[in-house]
């Protein structure tokens, strides 16, 4: 590997909460399909499909495929409890 003086090399960082366990049994596949369909319909705009992604993660948490986390910590604070954050 070339160690060029002065040029930065990319340092991959491990994810904050670790790795997703593989969904071998496809338990959350339906949620994923819903999310993908939403993305296709909305021209891949993530902002419009956040409900579906929230549901997918909730599915994972229920089936122990993901550590339980309050949804606010996952950035879904504005979708739960009717809390409206700055959406300008």
């Amino acid at each position, binding site marked *: 590997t070339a160690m060029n003086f002065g040029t930065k090399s990319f340092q*991959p960082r491990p994810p*904050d909460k670790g790795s997703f366990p*593989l969904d071998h049994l496809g338990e959350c596949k339906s949620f994923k399909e819903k999310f993908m369909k939403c993305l296709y319909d909305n021209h891949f705009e993530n902002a419009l499909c*956040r409900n579906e992604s929230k549901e997918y993660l909730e599915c994972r948490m229920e089936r122990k495929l993901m550590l339980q986390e309050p949804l606010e*910590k996952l*950035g879904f604070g504005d979708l739960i409890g009717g809390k409206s954050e700055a959406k300008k």
Partner: protein
Amino acid sequence: MGGLWHPGWRPVAFCGWRCIHPGSPARAAERVELFLRPEWSGTGGAEKGLRWLGTWKHCSLPARHPALQPPRRPKSSDPFTRAHVEEWRQRNKTTLTYVAAVAVAMLGASYAAVPLYRLYCQTTGLGGSAVAGHASDQIENMVPVKDRIIKISFNADVHASLQWNFRPQQTEIYVVPGETALAFYRAKNPTDKPVIGISTYNVVPFEAGQYFNKIQCFCFEEQRLNPQEEVDMPVFFYIDPEFAEDPRMINVDLITLSYTFFEAKEGHTLPVPGYN
């Protein structure tokens, strides 16, 4: 007495004016003044004056008459004092050399500091982590920057020795900084044997990579696929809201996330790019 002086005085005055050293009217005035001093009077005064009269024809070069020189510091012929003066001069020279060297060194250090600091950040990894904090409370409180839409495109690669079919399930996704997003990859093991893979990722452009934060993904851990198994691999990430405030990112509208899978064998250290 006074009468004798008269004729002597006038030519002397001339002498004073004739012998003027170009550009030294002060000297001339001094010379004239000297003749007015009491030493010149007296019994020998006339002779001295006449002798001086004779010299005024020959005063070609500016008078180096010793008595005419402005009083100078007596150049001591005493060797002891001279040595002192020499020593002082030597010491001054040495000090000056040292001071000049320090000044040049400081200038050089200020130039060298830029690449050295960069190298330091590279090796200690502080360059990446110091910029954006990854605390989960940051995710909680971050506000999406709605007017800055970024396109994230996805790329998938496998190492030549790994026979998985690995591809993204969407070619691109449009996000804004501060908004968490989900994306999927799919991997299939077409062989008849379970295969364990491990992946790493890369973000292009490099400078944007420091704002790309993964909350959870499938990288850096061994993932086992059974024969003929196909799984969905999600990536949950967000772009740091500070991305919108970085002036270097002003033209960045496309970020490419690229995952590469390698085969993980027992006791095998991976040639994972980016690790040294």
